[in-house]
């Protein structure tokens, strides 16, 4: 009968194909002692860490767009300094994508080693993180790190409005955006029910319109008004749309709104509304079952290093405020030119607590679609 031959053939083909896709062989993380090291010192010192990381040879990162806070250069610098290849997956992904990938790729050599996530996601995903304290631990303010070292804030910024001043003059307040010259002009960075940056944008408008961090109602109402007047643009703001003039006003984190990031020149201005300073920091975390535990920890050391080419100053060069900024300004290791280039902020910034963020998200889920459709 023909059948057994066919089955065998199919089976063989399948097996061959399984093996064919140039696998890097072993699955999951090795039984390296770096898997459980909670600091460089406890694992045997920085030199040992560098050696172990180099022998691992690869680092898996996820959701790091090259133009986001200078990540492109950060990755290049890391590879240049240590010779470790960085595999960057899903650059356009969200914080939730990172956590999803850690869960769905658990135990494989493809799983992300490290994560850079928004606080809302970080706080609910701590069961996936490994505790680790970088060498610069003491330079990080207590409020910006988890006491057990499960997550550590890394850089942040304030919600800002970036705009084409040649076309639209000077903008100084959020309410101005309701004016008639802003037809189809105002865009967010994403969908607020999905993206942290967009949710924070709505919250900023909320604060500017007199609302509080506990209720997002005024913010959503503002966008509803914007839509009624025809000023709201549903288009995803990207450097391409800014260049093309589709989205001449973009509400986004200040480090994503710098002229160089959006690919514009001196005509592109950025400001943080004086009555609505909404700050947000992201946080680093190490995957508890990282396939490359030593490389992961070395990456963290690199990111928090205060040297001129270390992560902190590189983030600053990208327009973001590094978490060790206060400490580095006192000890002089800060890049002064870059620091001076940050948009001026006068006043006390508001940071959303976990409850406030969740309430905002729930409110949006029920009301955003209705407001802007």
């Amino acid at each position: 009968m023909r059948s057994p031959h066919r089955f065998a053939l199919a089976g063989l083909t399948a097996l061959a194909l399984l093996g064919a896709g140039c696998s890097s062989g072993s699955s999951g993380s090795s039984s390296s002692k770096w898997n459980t090291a909670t600091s460089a010192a406890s694992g045997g010192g920085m030199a040992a860490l560098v050696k172990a990381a180099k022998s691992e040879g690869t680092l898996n990162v996820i959701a790091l767009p090259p133009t986001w806070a200078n990540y492109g250069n950060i990755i290049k610098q890391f590879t240049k300094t240590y010779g470790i290849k960085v595999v960057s997956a899903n650059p356009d992904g969200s914080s939730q994508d990172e956590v999803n990938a850690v869960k769905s790729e658990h135990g494989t050599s493809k799983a992300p080693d490290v994560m850079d996530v928004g606080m809302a996601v970080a706080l609910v995903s701590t069961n996936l993180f490994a505790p680790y304290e970088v060498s610069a631990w003491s330079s990080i303010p207590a409020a910006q790190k988890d006491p057990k070292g499960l997550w550590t804030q890394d850089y942040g910024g304030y919600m800002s409005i970036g705009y084409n001043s040649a076309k639209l003059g000077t903008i100084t307040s959020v309410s101005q955006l309701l004016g008639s010259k802003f037809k189809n002009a105002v865009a967010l960075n994403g969908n607020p029910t999905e993206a942290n940056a967009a949710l924070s944008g709505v919250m900023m408008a909320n604060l500017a319109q007199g609302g509080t961090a506990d209720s997002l109602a005024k913010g959503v109402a503002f966008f509803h008004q914007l839509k009624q007047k025809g000023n709201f643009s549903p288009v995803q703001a990207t450097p391409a749309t800014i260049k093309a003039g589709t989205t001449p006003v973009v509400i986004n984190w200040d480090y994503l709104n710098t002229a160089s990031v959006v690919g514009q020149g001196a005509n592109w201005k950025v400001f943080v509304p004086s009555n609505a300073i909404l700050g947000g920091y992201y946080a680093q975390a190490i995957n508890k079952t990282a396939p490359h535990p030593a490389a992961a920890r070395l990456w963290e050391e690199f990111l928090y290093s205060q040297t001129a080419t270390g992560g902190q100053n590189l983030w600053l060069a990208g327009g973001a405020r590094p978490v060790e900024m206060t400490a580095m300004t006192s000890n002089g290791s800060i890049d002064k030119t870059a620091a001076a280039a940050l948009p001026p902020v006068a006043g006390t910034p508001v940071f959303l607590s976990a409850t406030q963020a969740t309430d905002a998200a729930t409110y949006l889920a029920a009301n955003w679609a209705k407001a802007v459709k």
Partner: protein
Amino acid sequence: MVAVNVLGEGALVDPSARPPGMQLGRRKRLNLFRWVTFTIFGLFFLLPLIAMIRFSLEGKKPGTFSLTAWAQIGSTPDLVSAIEITLELAVITCAVMLVLLVPTMIWIRLRVQRISQIFEFLCLLPLTIPAIVLVVGLQPIYNQIEHYNVSALQLFWVYVILALPYAYRSLSAGLIAIDATTLSEAARSLGANWATVILRVIVPNMWQAIMNALLLTAALVLGEFTIAEILNDITLQVALFNISRATANAGVLFSTSTAALLFAFVLLLILSYAGRRRRRA
């Protein structure tokens, strides 16, 4: 329009001079209709493609021409590896489809017609489950696969499933057209064993249907985005999407898309000519 009375007489044109099955006047009207239709639809389909080509030739200043975007296809490393992976995926998926479906379908048609209904149902089932739904449930399964091999090439497992309905319909139409049963009976009565029947009698006769099925499969793999993106694999479509979000200079998007489209179109065109030659031979 030629008047025809109830008794069927009255053709004003000599019947033997009539184009087969149709009166001359009607033929003319039909041709007019056809040319108008083709022109309108042709324009509709061509215009976005023309826009794409125009953008792929855009130089630094709007309005100038330059081949940079085309050169960038080769010089963007992420794109090159994504193209490689996608092409390899297409080949693997086609190969698996060939080995899996062709013998099975021939076998069922010739020997076990009873299960052909169930088989058809299974093959057409993927049409009813949207990719976005499927991928949600696929994640844990792919997690297991990735314990062995993390390459994006593993996508072929699910791509074969996605292409099943299209390949099935093509092969099925081919099998019916060549009346496989009669052919195989003839071959068997001449003493051929089953392997010969399948390999040397049936397959050569349904070559066009097989090629068509493989081409539809390849087109599907080249265009698939949803599953690859959500499973974090970088294929051509995913790479293009990422580039569109990241960079302001989108020229390379258009050049790659145009190239892919031309590639597929030329292949299909060649296939349709190759089929004709076979039939006449």
